[in-house]
């Protein structure tokens, strides 16, 4: 039985097309980045705040998927429960801001704490809380592999979903609304473009971390643990620990995305924990292309665009989206970046 740890891309000979195709991927990445800067700026000039919101949504989804891609792309861990961390990030924001806006102390001991409306504090809490959750879930689910791992992460996702629904204090099924977006020192976060700038910066940091990680000793060992776990053990490293740390990091980044998403909507609800969202995060990565640094970004942008355009055409756009996804999985290995830039190469 296959282990279910994904295989990533088949290797590509360093053939004559190698450098050219790699150049094409770099060009594509640059174009995507350029688009993420120019389109919102254009939207400011053209006074199209909705477009900024749309791009912000795409960027936040991309960050969530960049987080997942550390577990999935580097570690080969098919987590179908990453919405857990997205939701925890969201509720970290929701709970802290709800206490602050309603002047209800969150706790009074050892010091009085009335919640906060400060983004940096909220982010720190979101990252720590989702990292802790990822560590605990990882500790349990990484005892297994393959299809067990998929089912267990999915199940834990559902557990958090139902827990959020039953947590009446924080809105239960209805969720919580936060009336005013949280603040960031020196910025006016109520201005869509300034908030967008923060989200884009977070995405770029996430991408930078991923890019460094995959070449650093940790990424190299993690990547080897996916392909040849016996070998990794035989050189004195423990694949389980590598995966656990990757899963924790991965959850932390997705958690940060959750906090940003909550601030974008000024609303959190149990749907942030839903299994559909977990599935969509994986779809973002595949849509763009596994083993690609920018795969999650391209995938998330495409998803949000389709959601916007196809959704305007028909209420049932998920049928078309499902069919497209099916075609890509069955016939289009390598995702959209793969179609444009050729197969992935061994990174070095």
């Amino acid at each position, binding site marked *: 039985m296959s282990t279910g740890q994904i295989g990533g891309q088949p290797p590509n000979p360093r053939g004559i097309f190698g450098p050219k195709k790699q150049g094409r991927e770099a060009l594509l990445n640059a174009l995507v980045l350029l688009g993420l800067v120019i389109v919102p700026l254009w939207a400011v000039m053209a006074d199209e705040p909705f477009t900024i919101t749309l791009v912000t949504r795409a960027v936040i989804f991309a960050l969530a998927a960049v987080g997942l891609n550390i577990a999935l792309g580097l570690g080969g861990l*098919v987590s179908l429960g990453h919405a857990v961390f997205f939701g925890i990030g969201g509720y970290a924001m929701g709970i802290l801001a709800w206490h602050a806006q309603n002047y209800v102390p969150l706790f009074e001991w050892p010091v009085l704490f009335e919640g906060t409306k400060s983004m940096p504090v909220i982010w720190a809490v979101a990252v720590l809380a989702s990292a802790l959750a990822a560590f605990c879930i990882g500790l349990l689910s990484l005892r297994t592999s393959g299809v*067990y791992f998929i089912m267990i992460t*999915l199940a834990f996702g559902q557990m958090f979903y139902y827990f959020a629904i039953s947590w009446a204090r924080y809105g239960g099924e209805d969720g919580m609304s936060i009336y005013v977006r949280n603040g960031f020192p020196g910025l006016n976060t109520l201005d869509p473009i300034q908030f967008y700038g923060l989200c884009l910066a977070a995405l770029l940091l996430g991408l930078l971390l991923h890019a460094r990680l995959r070449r650093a000793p940790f990424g190299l060992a993690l990547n080897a643990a996916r392909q040849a776990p016996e070998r990794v053990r035989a050189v004195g490293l423990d694949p389980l620990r590598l995966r656990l740390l990757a899963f924790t990091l991965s959850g932390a980044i997705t958690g940060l995305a959750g906090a940003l998403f909550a601030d974008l909507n000024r609303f959190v609800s149990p749907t942030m924990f839903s299994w559909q969202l977990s599935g969509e995060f994986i779809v973002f990565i595949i849509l763009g292309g596994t083993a690609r640094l920018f795969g999650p970004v391209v995938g998330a942008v495409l998803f949000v665009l389709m959601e916007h355009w196809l959704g305007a055409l028909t209420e049932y756009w998920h*049928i078309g989206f499902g069919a497209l996804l099916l075609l890509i999985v069955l016939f289009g290995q390598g995702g959209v970046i793969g179609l444009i830039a050729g197969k992935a190469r061994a990174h070095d």
Partner: protein
Amino acid sequence: MTFSLILEQVLNGLQSGIMLFLMAAGLTLIFGVMGLINLAHGSLYMVGAFCAAAVAGLTGSFVLGLAAALAGAALAGALIELVVIRRLYARDHLDQVLATFALILIFSEGTRWVFGSFPLYLDVPDALSGPVALPLGIQYPAYRLAIIVVGLVVAAGLFWLIGRTRLGIRIRAGENDREMIAALGVDIGRLYTIVFALGAALAGLAGALVGAIQSVQVGMGEPVLILAFVVIVIGGIGSIKGAFIGALLVGLTDTLGRIFLPELFKLVMEPSAATQAGSALAQIAIYVLMAAVLVWRPTGLFGARA
């Protein structure tokens, strides 16, 4: 809290456990034989429920509705096996997850397109609409009792099929050594289609039976699918016996937890807080059970030792 209430809740737990078994059995069979993780199994549950509701609504016959559920789900199962699923056997689990996730989207939105967003209602047949008197003075809904019986009969039939028939021998052989049975001249492709359709029919049956208690609506299948995953993780993958024990454990834990955990908490807390904490814990009780099994036996109660 009376003894008869406890017994009634045990029966409810048994009923939901047996319905879960019908789902989990198909999933675990499909995984055991073909090595495939099928997220769209919940869609087949939904297809069964919609077929039953539509046909029962047209003809007024619950039995015809059930027949339609079995046939519709089996047909849908065979169709997706032939068109999509068989391209996935050789793929890694990630591709299987994605493709069957795509199938969920197509099934769900397709069903919404045909039937609309409002729930359908499938009426319990008249003959079974009242309560029956059980020993010890318990009044229990006849329909729920009937589906426990139907579920047990199907479970027994499934054990017989796997353990005693030619098809069962082939299925078990397919779990162990598919090259060998292919070499012995068994048409592996057809065997896979049959197993998949069988699993689909079980899911469709469960959807139709449960559809008469709850409402029939888009998205009804996935929560059950995830519960069935919990069942499989607890029972051990590929084991029908494990699926049966796991399903009963999950059904009983879930049902009894909802009733008794708040009561239990009231012994140590003030009532309103106890109700809140108790019901919150009840929501997650089965996942705690799953976590405990994982710590104790990572491959499940009846799974092959890794």
